[in-house]
């Protein structure tokens, strides 16, 4: 069979795939794609379960934001500023507009109307203080690469070409993009973690002291999928926006604010997201530009950023961390001082908790924390996997290793001697903390007892071998969320919430929880997410989605069960005459007496008796007040490096990550999250660094070849252990999230292993071979 697909005619597109219907269908991933054995008892929670969206992903059917080929689609291409600070003097788009196929060039001078107040641009993940950046708003340039024009054309190639023809004149102003140059003018931001005792005095008096400065450069998330938005404009002015985002409702509210639209006029969809790591928490500029294009042309518009433009959005802030640790001769800490100086933009104050983590981990009567921000002419920094902890705990755990060396103590033993059973910042007990078990099981799996503590003492042929370890810690948060369950008489269950699945496995855990609570095989569950019209759900970040959404699903399922019970009580010969809500369960497609499941009625019979086709319930999650407890996940990471001393090449040959994160909903996807985090941590330690040419205030390696990330050849054995951590306090399922804990501490463990291998301490990340060679 032969098909002719001619150069796109906007009015007569004949593309076979990617209709909006297809995309909507993709949002409802059929759990029936599963290969796993059908189970009907309450057994999915805690069982390794293959992804319910797996088939869609391995067959290429999963549709991402930039993949909807709708009729009449217009292609955008953004033009970026070439100065770091200043004003636009003139934009000449004449040549671009002359190219056949170019429809328009939008700039701050001719764009549709946008809001003129900061509040309209504030999104759920925006820093509390500052004035959010307004894309294509006015002539001010706040960072190099900032979009200054949007070329709109009938096809992508023409748009890309014409974008090169847009000429922009600037009046440049002096800029600063170097944290080291700006550290002197950094200002203090208030943090909730309060000081204890007198750290300076205790440090001065301590028997053993370690004091040093550590550095983490700017890192970019670089998700594999480019930021993309496809905006479908309909004649009544309503917009359907397919966006790469970690929060469809956040983008929906943002667009309503920026464009003064009614809530009903904007729907945001993101059924699949090709990686986020925090970069998609805030709405990115491509969505604003694409909406501007669609409004101005009254046609559907797609804008996909190129890889270089991916460096014009948020990033992990470069951070200088200073640690001062004072200890008794036996290793018990007397004083901790942790200071951080991190990057933010000129227009917003972004910061996270870098400095307070020692208060969760280690006993010390005296502690002082300071967090400072330096303003640079860059976009606002942002959340990247375990923001604050990935950087702050790197410094803390490298410093603890240096203290262990000074004390001549085993690094694990030092941590056990300092182990804190309370959160000292808040003076609260933990809902659970099985970190001791992480140390024990991690050390055992790694073979830590065979470590010779002497640096440079272990070899494998020509290579030096180093073993290092570190502790990880993160928060176990849960947020308000709502879920809907629709039960059909044939037992089919649809579960829905406006979450995103950024690769974390949200589709799958939602199916697991719903299947268990509704007593149906997972194959009978359909999951819907990534649609702003679904029940409310927060942005997918902070490792809070699994716990938040699961408990909303449980609530909705319990309401559906309650309705079934109400109907069943009216059936002749009902076994539930005296039953209360808690006396019944759903199992095997039946409503049954808990503890006596033989006394049951098929769900189908109940619904037939009640003459209902389906039962639908929406429920908000609710949690007991646990404000009198600290809520954290913990880990212990053990790493082996091998280093060729002649050329300085460093390989991480083994890693063991032992994680305590409560009950694990799906060990298969959760294990993958931790493995991926360890890979990210290895990238932090050895590869990742955004390099700026400070003369121009421009990123020099804004691509994925010169910004190094781990590739297959860099990654060897990674073992993940989930230690048993019963937690009856945190929430009914006793679960905590695992999206971020896996990266925390990894960079320190690698750095510590490198020290053990070589006797050289490199404190500036990434630890590249040139830095090591300088010391070797």
């Amino acid at each position, binding site marked *: *069979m*032969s*098909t002719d*697909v*001619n*150069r*796109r005619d906007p009015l007569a597109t004949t*593309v076979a*795939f*990617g209709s909006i219907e297809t995309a909507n269908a993709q949002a409802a991933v059929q759990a029936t794609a599963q*290969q796993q054995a059908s189970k009907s008892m309450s057994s999915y929670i805690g069982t390794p379960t*293959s*992804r319910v*969206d*797996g*088939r*869609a992903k*391995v*067959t*290429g059917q999963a549709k*991402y934001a930039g*993949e909807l*080929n709708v009729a009449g689609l217009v292609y955008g291409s953004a033009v970026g500023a070439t100065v770091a600070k200043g004003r636009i003097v003139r934009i000449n788009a*004449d*040549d671009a507009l*002359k*190219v*056949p196929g170019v429809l328009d060039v939008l700039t701050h001078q001719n764009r549709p109307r946008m809001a003129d107040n900061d509040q309209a641009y504030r999104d759920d993940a925006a820093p509390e203080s500052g004035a959010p950046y307004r894309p294509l708003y006015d002539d001010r340039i706040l960072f190099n690469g900032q979009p200054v024009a949007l070329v709109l054309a009938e*096809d*992508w190639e023409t748009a890309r*070409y014409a974008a090169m023809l847009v*000429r922009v004149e600037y009046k440049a102003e002096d800029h600063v993009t170097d944290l080291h140059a700006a550290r002197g003018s950094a200002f203090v931001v208030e943090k909730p973690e309060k000081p204890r005792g007198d750290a300076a005095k205790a440090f001065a008096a301590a028997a053993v002291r370690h004091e040093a400065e550590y550095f983490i450069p700017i890192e970019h998330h670089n*998700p*594999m*999928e*480019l930021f993309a938005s496809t905006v479908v404009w309909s004649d009544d002015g309503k917009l359907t926006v397919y966006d790469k985002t970690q929060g469809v409702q956040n983008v929906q509210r943002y667009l309503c604010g920026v464009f003064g639209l009614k809530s009903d006029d904007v729907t945001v969809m993101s059924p*699949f*997201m090709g*990686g986020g*790591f925090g970069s998609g928490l805030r709405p990115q500029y491509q969505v604003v530009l694409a909406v501007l294009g669609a409004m101005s042309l009254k046609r559907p518009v797609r804008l*996909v950023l*190129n*890889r270089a433009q991916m460096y014009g959005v948020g990033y992990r802030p470069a951070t200088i961390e200073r640690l001062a640790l004072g200890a008794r001769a036996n290793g018990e800490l007397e004083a901790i001082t942790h200071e951080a100086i991190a990057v933010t933009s000129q227009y917003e104050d972004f910061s996270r908790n870098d400095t307070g983590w020692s208060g969760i981990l280690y006993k010390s009567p005296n502690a002082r924390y300071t967090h400072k921000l330096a303003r640079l002419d860059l976009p606002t920094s942002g959340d990247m996997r375990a923001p604050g902890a990935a950087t702050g705990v790197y410094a803390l755990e490298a410093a603890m290793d240096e203290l262990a060396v000074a004390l001549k103590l085993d690094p694990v033993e030092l941590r056990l001697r300092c182990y804190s059973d309370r959160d000292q910042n808040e003076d609260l007990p933990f809902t659970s903390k099985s970190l001791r078990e992480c140390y024990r099981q991690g050390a055992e799996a790694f073979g830590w007892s065979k470590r010779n503590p002497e640096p440079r003492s272990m070899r494998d042929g020509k290579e030096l071998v180093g073993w290092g370890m570190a502790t990880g810690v993160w928060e176990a948060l849960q947020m308000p969320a709502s879920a809907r369950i629709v039960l059909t008489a044939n037992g089919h269950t649809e579960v829905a919430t406006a979450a995103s699945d950024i*690769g974390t496995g949200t589709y799958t855990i939602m199916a697991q929880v719903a299947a268990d609570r509704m007593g149906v095989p997972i194959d009978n569950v359909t999951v819907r997410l990534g649609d702003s019209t679904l029940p409310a759900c927060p942005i997918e970040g902070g490792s809070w989605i699994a716990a938040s959404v699961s408990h909303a699903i449980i609530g909705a399922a319990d309401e559906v069960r309650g309705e079934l019970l109400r109907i069943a009580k009216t059936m002749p010969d009902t076994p539930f005459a005296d039953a209360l809500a808690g006396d019944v369960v759903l199992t095997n497609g039946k409503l049954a007496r808990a503890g006596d499941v033989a006394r049951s009625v098929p769900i189908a019979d109940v619904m037939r008796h009640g003459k209902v086709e389906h039962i639908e319930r929406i429920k908000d999650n609710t949690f007991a007040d646990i404000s009198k407890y600290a809520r954290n996940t913990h880990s212990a990471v053990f790493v082996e490096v091998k280093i060729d001393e002649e050329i300085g090449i460093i390989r991480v040959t083994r890693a063991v990550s032992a994680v305590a994160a409560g009950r694990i909903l799906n060990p298969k*996807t959760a*294990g*993958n*999250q931790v493995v*991926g*985090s360890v*890979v*990210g941590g290895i990238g932090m330690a050895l590869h990742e660094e955004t390099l700026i040419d400070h003369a121009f205030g421009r990123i020099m390696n804004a*691509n994925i*070849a010169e910004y190094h*990330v*781990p*590739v297959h*050849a860099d*990654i060897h054995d*990674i073992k993940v252990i989930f230690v048993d951590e019963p937690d009856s306090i945190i929430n009914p399922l006793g679960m905590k999230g695992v999206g971020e804990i896996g990266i925390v501490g990894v960079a320190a463990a690698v750095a510590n292993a490198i020290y053990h291998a070589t006797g050289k301490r490199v404190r500036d990340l990434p630890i590249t071979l040139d830095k090591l060679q300088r010391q070797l």
Partner: protein
Amino acid sequence: MSDVSRSAAMAAPATINVTLEVNGRSCTLTIAPWTTLLDALRDRLGLTGTKKGCDQGQCGACTVLVDGRRINSCLTLAVMKDGAKVTTIEGLETDGTLHPLQQAFIDHDAFQCGYCTPGQICSAAGLIAEGKAKTPDQIRELMSGNICRCGAYPNILAAIQQAMTAMGGKS
């Protein structure tokens, strides 16, 4: 960029016909020669299973098989492949049965976000056909053009090993 911007605007180059056999189906496209094979697949043929992660040969997300060999389709103009047989991720299933690599990727949870996955799978199919990778380290080395930012590498390796065994070393 400045050289281009100083030259007078020019029209898109004239279109030409290109015939490709994509997943067993012959397709004739009338396209401008500056169209990459990747964009031809995604935008003209609607085969969006092949992903764009960088558009400059650095990530491997766009990997497809052309006459049985794996290539980066973003670095290939469609006109260069006139008459060639192209296999994309959409063409690996047979009669609703997943390719052993596709099944192995699900079994081993060899992805998270799934965006690198079509490229990893096509690349692995090419790798197995090349027959050069025998050991885990050889597989790692020869798969290193396919970046997985989610970091699912150990699972991808396990999946490739399972598929290699299932396929008896043949593609």
